[in-house]
């Protein structure tokens, strides 16, 4: 691990809470009942499809934060430079 793991600092604790809140929001946003019968085309696709593609992009952005702040404490990262660090 690095000398001062991000998750053990006050900033890390705030980050973990933010990640938890964003993940909870994503679970709610996945249930998009608001586009259920809407067939408008947005960016060339039916809005119900465009929304869920955008949802996948949003998940990726939240996961970047989750990897940064929500990494399991007991899992060593190996100290290498693999991945996105």
């Amino acid at each position: 691990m690095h000398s001062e793991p991000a998750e053990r600092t006050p900033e890390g604790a705030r980050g973990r809470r933010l990640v938890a809140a964003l993940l909870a929001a994503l679970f709610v946003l996945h249930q998009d009942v608001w586009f259920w019968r809407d067939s408008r085309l947005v960016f060339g696709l039916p809005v119900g499809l465009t929304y869920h593609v955008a949802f996948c992009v949003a998940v990726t952005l939240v996961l970047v934060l989750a990897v940064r702040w929500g990494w399991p404490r007991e899992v060593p990262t190996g100290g290498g430079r693999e991945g996105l660090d």
Partner: protein
Amino acid sequence: MTLAVVAVYLLTLVVIGAASARLAQRTSEDFFIAARSLGPVLLLTSLLGAHMTAFSLLGASAESYQRGIGVFALMASSSALVAPLVFLYLGTRVWALARRHGFLTQVEYFRERWGSEALAHLLFAALLVLLVPYLLLGVKGGGLTLAEVSDGALPEWLASLITAGVVLGYVALGGMRGTAWVNAFQTVLFVALGAVLFGVIVGDLGGLPAVFARLAVDRPALLVRGDLIRPLELLSYAAIPLSVAMFPHMFLTWLTAKSGAAFRLSVVAYPLCVAAIWLPSVLLGVMAAVDLPGLSGPATSSVLMRMLRAHAPGVLGSVLAGGVFAAVMASIDSQVLALSTMFTRDVVGRWRLRRGRPFAERSQVVVGRLFVAIVLVAAWGLSLVADRSLFRIGVWAFTGFAGLLPLLLAALFWRRSTAAGGIASIVTTLGTWAWFLSRGWKDPGYTVGGTGLMPVVVVLAASTLAMVVGSLASPAPPRDRVERFLSARRA
């Protein structure tokens, strides 16, 4: 011409398997989990190859053909959210424990965690039963693709047999190392060719606006979820991707990571990769509804290949067909390898250990190869008689694996959990899964009580309850065993 291209492609897979065997160290750890050596990119392509199956291509397009764009929300975006979280919060922990304790299989982990041979044997039997429909999906999907590619020159039974034979070739030769390299090749090939495939077909149909204009007139219901998908169905489908936590092949793939950091790329990139694979499949399925109308039942499973044949003939079509075939085959290899690993180590290996004749490293690999052959022949035999749609076969397989999730959660996080709780959870999962399967097999649109609720929710709830009641009703586990597996959490 098409068959020649596919033949070259299949031969390439076997050559990659053989070449990677030359790199191998001839130990069971290398054959089964590539000596825990995969970096971020190979780990990502291995996970994708193992997870994105005939279900994601042939099954997704077939289901979209009948139920429209909502299929993307049902399986793709829910998997994009759930699967990487499973990798991040469960997969990395399993990897760390495996590294510390040296285990190679799922069964080995649960046996050591709760100290129970009975639980280990029961779990192996349950995983074998649940993996059968999943393997069937791959062999049948591969056969279907190859039969379509050959324009009927190869009957489906022979095409499925060829699929199983090629997988046997490169898995037996290269083990996990070979499988990882073949998966990387297949995933790159499919992602590259998938984009071309989609562009060629859409271009031939006059472009996306023209297709959607036709759909708006002829099949407007497919452009919305409307009455084809119910809100409770969307909600309960989100539990199905939890199955990735207990797929033996995903579990095995987690162990191949060379470091915890190798998981980062897989976690972050997974949602985009899932979307990139599912979006063309869903769109092509919906487009086929107006381009190739009139298909129903299991016949819809070949809709993607029919679109390809109709709009991308000649050499280009052959190469693109090879890409589809690549993705369809990519999961079978890791599934049979995972099963053979568990059979070799947890069934035959334990039996020999009890008789005082432990396995030599070389013998383990030989037995592993033999078991791969047996499993593939059995899957091929079943593919000849199963006539369900690929999507439905997949959903049933995932439902069973999702039901086993409480086992992993309890093993990782619950100090009071016991082997009795684990056994109760497995038995309950198998019982409820079989009961729902018997009711739903004949009815493709089956939901619990016709409410839209998917059986996975009931199976998962019953399995969780069994885990809790079974554990609390049995004596607390020995403290030293709990400390061995959970102490790191308090570090």
